[in-house]
């Protein structure tokens, strides 16, 4: 039966409701053959109609972002601009408003993804390669940690950061984000690594290579797509995270785009909707592009399967 347990998605619980660890599945499998063909035609027309309704409901809020970003008289309501303009983009494309926050986002998300991938790959090796009694309990902790809503408790995290003197520290934020993505990353990478045959390493061991050099020279190159998928998952998740940097970073010069968009637009009386939408487009495009890249890399259900198989 269908063993579709999206552990990849567990991270969403772990690191806030972000496009966390998208299980890369294109629900495009051909429909099961039906027996009666006239009925089938009727069904597919009805299904197309229903699907169109769903599609419109999902399209409208998305369309607002795109249309408002080029509408000189943007409001909160969707309308097709009579004379489209790029003036909102040129207004927001300044150092303080766009480039610095996006750079901060890049530093925070890139840092978190890099730390997570390196640390989790190391951890995955003994978990995948040695059969130890310890492994099972460790995997339970990992699984448990991957779905605990840790980012729902930013109040004690804030208090802890105050106590450690790490408030307003980019490094602290990066490490916290990495730690919250680690359970999911270890789980996925361990399962990817299980798919790399041990026999290749055995040959290296015979030649006198240590476990770590076998990991670096043989295992890591073989699971490059899997590592890339995990990197992008963590990056996307951190890029979209608002709550963590909102609480942990106070200095506007350090805040990533998620926070700067809120402090700039969310607290002003009269919101400049056109600029808000233009900024949203600039800020959201990288993660949408990365998502497409993951689908390429992962080739259908590969990522899901990798994260799911025990």
């Amino acid at each position, binding site marked *: *039966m269908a063993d579709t347990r999206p552990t990849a*998605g567990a991270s969403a619980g772990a690191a806030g409701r972000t496009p966390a660890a998208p299980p890369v599945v294109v629900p495009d499998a051909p429909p099961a053959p039906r027996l009666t063909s006239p009925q089938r035609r009727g069904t597919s027309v009805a299904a197309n109609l229903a699907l169109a309704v769903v599609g419109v409901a999902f399209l409208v809020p998305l369309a607002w972002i795109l249309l408002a970003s080029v509408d000189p008289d943007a409001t909160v309501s969707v309308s097709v601009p009579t004379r489209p303009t790029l003036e909102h983009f040129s207004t927001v494309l300044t150092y303080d408003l766009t480039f610095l926050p996006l750079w901060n986002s890049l530093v925070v998300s890139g840092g978190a993804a890099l730390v997570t991938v390196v640390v989790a790959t190391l951890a995955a090796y*003994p978990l995948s390669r040695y059969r*130890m009694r310890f492994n099972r309990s460790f995997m339970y902790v990992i699984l448990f940690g991957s779905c605990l809503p840790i980012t*729902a408790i930013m109040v004690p995290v804030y208090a802890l950061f105050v106590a450690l003197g790490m408030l307003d520290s980019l490094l602290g934020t990066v490490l916290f984000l990495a730690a919250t993505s680690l359970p999911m990353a270890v789980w996925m990478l361990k399962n990817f690594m299980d798919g790399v045959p041990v026999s290749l390493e055995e040959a290296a061991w015979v030649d006198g290579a240590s476990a770590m050099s076998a990991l670096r020279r043989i295992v890591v190159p073989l699971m490059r797509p899997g590592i890339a998928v995990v990197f992008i998952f963590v990056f996307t998740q951190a890029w979209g995270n608002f709550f963590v940097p909102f609480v942990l970073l106070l200095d506007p010069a350090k805040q990533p785009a998620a926070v700067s968009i809120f402090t700039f637009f969310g607290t002003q009386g009269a919101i400049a909707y056109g600029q808000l939408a233009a900024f*949203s487009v600039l800020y959201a495009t990288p993660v949408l592009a990365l998502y497409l890249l993951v689908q390429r890399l992962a080739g259908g259900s590969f990522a899901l399967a990798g994260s799911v198989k025990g």
Partner: protein
Amino acid sequence: MSAPAGATAPAPARATGRGDGGGRLVLLARLAPLAPTVALMLVFLAGPIAYALYGSLTNTALSGYRAADPEFVGLDNYSTLVSSGEFWQSAWLTLLFVLASAVVGQNVLGMVVALLLRAARGPLRSLVSGLVVTAWVLPEIVAAFALYAFFSGDGTLNAVLGLVGGEGAGGTAWLVTFPMTAVILANVWRGTAFSMMVYGAALAEVPPDLAEAAALDGASGRQRFFRITLPLLRRSIGTNLMLTTLQTLGVFTLIWVMTGGGPGTSSSTLPVLAFQEAFRFGQVGYGTAIAVVTLVVGALFATVYVRVLKPEVD
């Protein structure tokens, strides 16, 4: 590093060897790569949890002298919590939010869209699934602003209602009058993609011959779905319910941007209330106690989830 060359994996005998110093050294060397993971998880995951348990027993404040020198107050925060109407209201709102938007909304709509995608034909399928997924991949704050615009007084929803319903139909201030309805629908919009993908993958694995056999026996489409497909998807449904529940329990940004938990606290779920108590009213200790309650609820669900997935680990 130092795992010996002869250590052909898997080597259970040597790994679990006890008593002799060599075995213990080998074990240590093998566990060494786990150290950074363990360290990070201890400091940044176990740390906040331990700190939450302790902090909820103090009267820590955000500023002033109780920030620097908090007092131990025992279970005072919890007794305040239990006798506070605001807390029970928030617990109820959280339950409502999770049930309506995750358990019912995302799961049912996700399943429906997954079924429609299988039944429909043509390019509409990839278009619609692309739109649903985009709503989910988008950074949460962008989604929150888009939905704020959609539901606000002069927003698209009211514009459409005004067109369809005529006079007075589009005058509702959704975010003020029905804040919970707005954030629940928003969370359905935001999170349905996940359930859709899970169910899409699960449906693809249901062997078609079972449904065909039932159809030959005269079972209707509805009977085939409820008596054959649904029971076969039991496990996927169970895990998906668990995961969407846990995700929804932690939702903060969507509600914070759309309503700020308001008007008043009428849309403050537990994470939002904890934040308000700590950062708006300066009661960090009290806010921490609310966080502990949220965490305990999350931990209960997580335990069930781990139990369901037990065969995966073994």
